[in-house]
């Protein structure tokens, strides 16, 4: 029977390297795919995975089990992802609220997404890349991570209604893109 996250953490803290690897393998795909959708680059996504688990590892002794490990992990993932996006864009992102960033001009054969063999993934990535950063993050949190608006608001330190408004604006943008595509 598979060990729980808490058991793996205890074993890791006791020096069991295999337990740490098991814990990482259990959660890394979620982090990596989030990175692909948010950062639009496989190398950046892998950077995110490595930074996240390095950060988690360094702070593992602080995890007291009051919340689920996956919840705690996701908070780290969110913060690291925002940090990476900021570094890539070299400018403020989330403070500016609904500020729109210039949409990259891309066509269907954009080589940027050739690493995605799956056609659906490629299309979704293109749509996501054309969203502003704030909208992309909110779609990721709501659609792919299934967070509630209260959780999103708490994570991003914004009012709940702001989170809802951003989500609506993102859906509207996606709808327009999909209509143009078809």
């Amino acid at each position, binding site marked *: 029977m598979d060990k729980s996250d808490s058991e793996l953490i205890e074993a890791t803290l006791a020096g069991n390297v295999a337990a740490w690897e098991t814990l990482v*393998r259990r959660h890394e795909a979620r982090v990596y795919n989030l990175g692909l959708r948010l950062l639009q680059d496989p190398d950046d996504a*892998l950077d995110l995975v490595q930074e996240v688990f390095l950060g988690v590892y360094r702070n593992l002794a602080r995890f007291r089990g009051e919340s689920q490990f996956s919840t705690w992990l996701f908070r780290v993932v969110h913060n690291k992802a925002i940090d990476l996006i900021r570094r890539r864009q070299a400018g403020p992102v989330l403070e500016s609220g609904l500020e729109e960033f210039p949409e990259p001009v891309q066509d269907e054969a954009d080589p940027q997404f050739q690493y995605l063999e799956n056609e659906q993934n490629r299309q979704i990535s293109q749509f996501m890349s054309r969203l502003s950063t704030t909208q992309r993050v909110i779609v990721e949190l*709501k*659609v792919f991570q299934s967070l509630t608006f*209260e959780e999103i608001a708490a994570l991003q330190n914004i009012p709940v209604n702001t989170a809802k408004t951003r*989500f*609506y604006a993102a859906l509207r943008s996606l709808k327009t893109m999909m209509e143009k595509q078809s």
Partner: protein
Amino acid sequence: MSCPRIALSVADHFDDSLTPSQRQELEQHLASCAECRQEIAQLQDIPAQLRNWQDMAVPAWDRKPQARHVLARGSLPLRRRADSWRKAANWLPLAASMVLAVAVVTQTRLNVTDDGWSLSFGGAAPSVTSAPALDVAQLNALLQSHAEVQQAATRQWVEAALRAHGETTAENLMQWVNYIEQQRQQDVQRMEAGFQQLLDRDFQTVDSVRQLASYVMYQELP
């Protein structure tokens, strides 16, 4: 005219965490607002389309190095505490100097009597309160002697503090000098060893050439 709560209606529609009363409120609004209903109908499929994303496998990466430094729970705080004490110790001479400087500037005095102890600033105040019956001349003389004693004492404190601070700094400097000297000696030894190896190799090469030359000469002889 656009419905003012269209964004909230759409967002709430996709929110599975609505309470029954919130859900009922939304339904009531949708029943009377064609615009919100239409908008939800238009956007309904988008999240489902996005969820068609197929998770991709994570490329190979080294998970082990992070785990090499695994510390047992409890050891990390101890190490941090040790670090913080070490850092604090570096500031001790400066802190002591600052305290003494403040004491000098404010003429701080510690008065210990049978009733307990008291701290006074400015030097003259305790004398006034402790000898109210003295005349002005006596008081001035007393104050003068107190001031001299106090100045001598504070001078000693400052000198001692400066000496301690200087010794600490000199010790640190000496440690650096010793360290740099050791490094320099090691570098010289390494260079000498490398040079020796080069020389040895050169000698070997010369020997080889000599052997080759003698062999060639031997071959050329009839």
